[in-house]
């Protein structure tokens, strides 16, 4: 026993002067960390079970609880830090691959934080969005190569199918199964009210959610779970998932314990069987195979839906994107290194892939260099945390962004990074009925709506500050960005100048 003991990183600090032993914390904790000691009439906590999700902190009526760092340390070592040591202990005990949830918490550079945005002074007036129109509407999809005219010279509408969004943000792919039914309902309803889209992920589409089809992106991933003609035709667009930023080169695995009831039916697999998505699509071993799938899906949907191809940001992402742009796909989604996940091997999550800012800048430039940027739209994802990140992503060249973690935070997620346990105390990443019902869809969808409404206001303020009154004039407008503390090469890849440079 002793050799495998790992002292908890965090502990629940209880102020006994405030605690009234109401036992709310005990009832709320699915990890069973809190316990009422009858003989002394006091609450106690087993910190080894605590995941630091803050459910008890938020619900304690007397504010008697907070979670603090336990302060237990190994002998300080710049090479062998405590995280590394603990992970090694766990593997020595289990012989298994380490598993993690959500985006990488490691300290890799966040380039968004090293980029600053411009504003107008004197020579060009800033625009007040409260007084003047400020447009955030975007269209995603390929643009016609040539314009066509009818007999009388009138323009013929030869636009390929497109996604029309009221603002350049969508909810990224998170499957029903990895998320609860209520979480999906929140996303779907918010997408509808915001006139944007959410994404089914690889979990199929629950029959109750077909009503939100116009605001739904249906995903086709390597396991093909839940894919059938009605599903494909129900959405506004179809996304082929080739990769995910949190786990490039890795497939997915939803354990059989979660494949129950509606989830089993929606995914079209037997209850209790593991849902394993292979690492590659086994019908796509090269770019020409991708083209076949793109056109198979177009055939299946009568060429009425734009096709998105989602890839993880990896080293040669620009060349891959160039291939995708020539594959018939209408939109490419690039998922950066810091993107979230329900579960991924820790080593992959923390060591594979590249940051979205660099990948995005490089893809946008490459597609322009090859003259094919108009053939495809770009969605950037992989840790978009605020409206400022959105402005920066669009100025770097994105048409739109995906948010995942940010949306979950709006629903109550406290980033405890234990989604893989299935015991989400906030009712988001769980299938336990008593936990799921904690997420009220009415409140959840309102909070998502509020979040993006707030972001929309902020986007408009920043656009107006730059003297821009339409989001399309920000797209790829890299002169609006400046780097701080970046080296020549980083600036070069991002295609921006350093702050203070002429």
């Amino acid at each position, binding site marked *: 026993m002793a050799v495998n003991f790992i002292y908890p990183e965090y502990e629940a600090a209880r102020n006994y002067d405030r605690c009234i032993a109401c036992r709310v914390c005990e009832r709320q904790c699915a990890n069973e960390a809190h316990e009422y000691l009858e003989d002394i009439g006091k609450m106690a906590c087993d910190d080894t079970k605590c995941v630091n999700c803050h459910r008890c902190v938020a619900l304690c009526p007397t504010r008697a609880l907070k979670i603090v760092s336990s302060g237990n340390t190994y002998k300080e070592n710049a090479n062998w830090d405590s995280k590394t040591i603990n992970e090694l202990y766990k593997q020595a005990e289990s012989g298994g691959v380490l598993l993690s949830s959500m985006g990488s918490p490691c300290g890799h550079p966040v380039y968004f934080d090293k980029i600053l945005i411009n504003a107008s002074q004197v*020579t060009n*007036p800033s625009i007040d969005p409260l007084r003047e129109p400020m*447009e955030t509407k975007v269209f995603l999809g390929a643009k*016609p190569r040539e*314009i066509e005219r009818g007999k009388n010279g009138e323009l013929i509408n030869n636009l390929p199918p497109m996604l029309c969004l009221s603002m350049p943000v969508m909810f990224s792919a998170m499957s029903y199964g990895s998320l609860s039914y209520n979480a999906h309902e929140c996303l779907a309803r918010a997408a509808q009210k915001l006139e944007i889209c959410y994404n089914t992920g690889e979990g199929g589409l629950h029959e109750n959610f077909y009503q939100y089809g116009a605001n739904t992106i249906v995903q086709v991933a390597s396991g093909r779970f839940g894919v059938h003609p009605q599903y494909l035709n129900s959405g506004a667009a179809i996304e082929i998932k080739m990769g995910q930023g949190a786990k490039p080169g890795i497939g997915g695995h939803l354990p059989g314990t979660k494949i129950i009831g509606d989830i089993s039916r929606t995914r079209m697999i037997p209850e209790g069987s593991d849902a394993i998505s292979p690492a590659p699509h086994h019908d796509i071993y090269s770019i020409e195979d991708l083209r076949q799938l793109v056109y198979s899906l177009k055939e299946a949907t009568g060429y009425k839906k734009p096709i998105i191809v989602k890839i993880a940001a990896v080293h040669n992402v620009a060349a891959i994107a160039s291939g995708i742009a020539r594959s018939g796909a209408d939109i490419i989604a690039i998922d950066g290194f810091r993107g979230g996940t329900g579960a991924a091997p820790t080593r992959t999550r923390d060591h594979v892939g590249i940051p979205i800012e660099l990948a995005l800048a490089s893809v946008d430039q490459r597609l322009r260099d090859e*003259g094919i940027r108009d053939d495809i739209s770009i969605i950037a994802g992989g840790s978009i945390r605020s409206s400022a990140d959105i402005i920066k992503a669009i100025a770097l060249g994105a048409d739109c962004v995906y948010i995942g973690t940010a949306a979950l935070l709006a629903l109550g997620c406290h980033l405890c990074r234990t989604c893989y346990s299935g015991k989400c105390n906030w009712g988001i990443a769980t299938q336990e009925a008593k936990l799921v019902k904690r997420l009220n869809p009415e409140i959840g969808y309102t909070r998502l709506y509020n979040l993006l409404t707030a972001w929309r206001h902020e986007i408009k303020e920043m656009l107006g500050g730059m*003297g821009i009154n339409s989001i399309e*004039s920000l797209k790829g407008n890299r002169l609006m960005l400046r780097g701080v503390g970046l080296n020549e090469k980083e600036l070069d890849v991002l*295609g921006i100048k350093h702050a203070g440079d002429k």
Partner: protein
Amino acid sequence: MGQSNIGQSYGNGENRYKEGQIRIPAGCAISGIIDKSGRRMSGEAIIKSIAVMRERSNGLGGGFAAYGIYPEYKDYYALHIFYDSSHIKRECEEFLERHFDIINLSKIPTRKMKGITDEPLIWRYFVTPLPTKLAESQLDEREFTAKCMFRINTHIEGAYVFSGGKNMGVFKAVGYPEDVGRFYRLEDYEGWCFTAHGRYPTNTPGWWGGAHPFALLDYSVVHNGEISSYDANRRAIEMYGYKCTLQTDTEVITYIIDYLHRKKGLTFEEIASVIAAPFWKTIERMTPKKRQIHEYLRVTFSAQLITGPFSILVGFEGGLMALGDRLKLRSMVVGEKGDIVYIASEEAAMRIIEPNLDAVWAPKGGQPVIICLNQEK
């Protein structure tokens, strides 16, 4: 990004940058006159008009575009070229001889002016593409000529083609515009349309090529404003083979107009709906047919939308278009007298040459004023 060298700067301190090395915002004055009947007038009037708005420029650039001035050579491209030295001139002329039949060449006549200094060699060539070269290139005549202009401007350091249309010409320099007009003896030319520009750059590069109008083939643009969509527009247009060597708004606007009109075949009304597109809210209120057209243009050419303040005059073969940004952040008034239409940043600039205008009005933001010749010349 986009560092390019277009010859040496003229007589400036070493620490100054010229267009192409740095992005320079500028405020300005513009004026234009067009006679719809095609009757030709002297360049005197436009000089008087732009001189009224001296306050709006700061002596760091002025210029004119004149249409219908070379009727005797109307079938030939008139190339106006600045040279740093006679050595570069020889190099450039060798290039021209390899690609064009040169019908006529001469120095552009100028007169010494106190306010105009450091002039480069200024030459004019009337040319037509060599048939063999043209066939070999598999391009149409206009594309071939435009490509050659780009080639000279980017590859022959110290040579700069600043005008290259048929039966039209651009005249520009560093100085106040009225001095520039006198310098080029504009009063000796007769044309059916003139535009003028007085520049107020916020930096002092003082390079002649950086003055306005900016022209490509027979399209010329004078522009007052500073567009906020610049880099979005630049990066988009460069994808179609244009090179924005000057980093000025006027350059990118000219390329956008060339792209939309010559390459995509849009009408000037449609071009106005692209670069100063109606707001989505306005489009939603349109009749279904109109709505479809505007939606189509906005979606297809979203990267050619121009935001931020601008008022522009676009000269082209057979007409003139005036357009302001959709919020009307720059002034522009239109006056009419018989067949003659005046457009200027300020009403005074029209009144000085025609005190008794039939009508004076200010176009709304994003509303194009397109004046075409009644009949071809």
